[in-house]
């Protein structure tokens, strides 16, 4: 009897999903609030997560999210472990050599977070000090490029913020939405941290990355992004996750 019930349920699920819908596996490093992070129910949520869902709906594919550590996220893409990475990936020239990007979907800048009692206004003023960032991010590259600063790379931006919070390092550089999340939104961090400056490294654009040459998936994603932008869904999501 029990077995029969299971079969009926399984059949119902199978029939409910249109047979032609393609399922794409999308990797995210869920440690980057508010773009992608884990809620208490252990689900990945955030702007990027909602954005991919909207894109999927418009382009007519199903999506499964996979939580992958940032450190190896592009290696996994290259190895074909998932179809795309949508995890606050800034489009850079180096990355463009290694993978293909969809239409840019989000603009960010690099922000410097420091302790509230610090008077620092630029990254250059932190000469001789230690500044942290997440390994392999444009924020970390910006620190490394600034002469005289000891760059410290963390596995997750949260660990860098924790070290800044406890006073072991003098600053953290990351994308401005994430910097705002820590320095303004999270009560205990916000009491001790502030955004000192937006770096003059220029605007950066997030893109959804696919394996180099995977035109089929790229076209599907771009089709969805165009529809999402035309309908203004991205503005709704921005209001929901970022505010202003």
């Amino acid at each position, binding site marked *: 009897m029990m077995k029969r019930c299971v079969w009926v349920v399984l059949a119902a699920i199978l029939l409910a999903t249109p047979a032609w819908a393609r399922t794409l596996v999308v990797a995210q490093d869920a440690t980057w609030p508010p773009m992608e992070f884990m809620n208490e129910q252990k689900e990945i949520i955030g702007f990027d997560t909602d954005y991919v869902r909207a894109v999927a709906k418009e382009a007519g594919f199903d999506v499964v999210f996979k939580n992958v550590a*940032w*450190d*190896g996220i*592009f*290696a996994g893409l*290259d190895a074909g472990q998932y179809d795309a990475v949508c995890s606050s990936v800034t489009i850079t020239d*180096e*990355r463009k050599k*290694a993978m293909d990007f969809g239409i840019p979907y989000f603009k960010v800048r690099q922000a410097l977070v420091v302790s509230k009692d610090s008077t620092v206004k630029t990254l250059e003023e932190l000469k001789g000090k230690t500044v*942290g960032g997440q*390994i*392999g991010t444009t924020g970390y*590259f910006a620190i490394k490029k600034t002469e005289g600063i000891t760059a*410290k*790379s*963390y*596995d997750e931006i949260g*660990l*860098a913020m*924790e*070290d800044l919070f*406890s*006073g*072991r390092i003098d600053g953290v550089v990351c994308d401005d939405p994430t910097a705002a999340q820590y320095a303004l939104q999270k009560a205990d961090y916000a009491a001790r941290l502030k955004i000192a400056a937006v770096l003059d490294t220029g605007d950066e654009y997030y893109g959804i990355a696919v394996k180099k040459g995977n035109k089929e998936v790229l076209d599907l994603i771009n089709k969805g992004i165009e529809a999402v932008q035309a309908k203004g869904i991205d503005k709704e999501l921005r209001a929901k996750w970022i505010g202003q």
Partner: protein
Amino acid sequence: MEKKTIDVSDGAAIPRKKDAGLFSAWRISFAGALIILLCLVVFEPDPYLKILKFLPDGILITFEVTIFAIIFAVLLGLLTGLGRISKNPFINAVASTYVEVVRGIPLLVQLFYIYYALGRFVRLPDMVAAIIAMSLCYGAYMGEVFRAGIESIDKGQMEAARSLGFNRTQTMFYVILPQAWRTILPPVGNEFIALLKDTSLVSILAVADMLRRGREFASETFTYFETYTVIALVYLLITLLLSKMVSILEEKLNYYDQS
């Protein structure tokens, strides 16, 4: 007296006299690793030479953590080993509890705990936290080795020394330990090697050791295969050299056992 020991460890195989032939496992691994690394660097300097040039400060940090942790772990291990065989119930309980607690918690968790969890109360610099965590962990492992080594010395030695007028401390340091050292060295040597390999875990504290340097390089250039190949080969070479050193030391100490 024929002494039977079980030579299995998670450290590395310490080369014995009998595997000194031309095709010993040690020689094959060492020469192989060295030749592969050299070939890669010479024939494909981009990216292999770049990777190798990126690593030296990381290798230095790896050595630094290893050496300090070995020193403190040996001292702590000796104290713990003596504490474990102590007749004083308080000292014994402290030493035994320390061993039980530390051996029951993974090193990775200990590292996180000392650096991030306790970081809210004591602000230890990353290197200090790394060395403390490694020493605490390996001190407990070595404590057990020391205890076993000391207990392996015949009771008659203690009795003889005591009847000659030595007190317990003198007996321990002049009679028991010099003999026990020979039994202790092989497993302690293994612990050294295991410790060196486990220092790769400190990279999670954002300590810029060899592994973290490699990860930084790979995450910027996307040369995952190339970078981790070099990292693995360099670790292998260092570990093999250390195991050779331990085996030379062991042979020196075993001088009197050869008949």
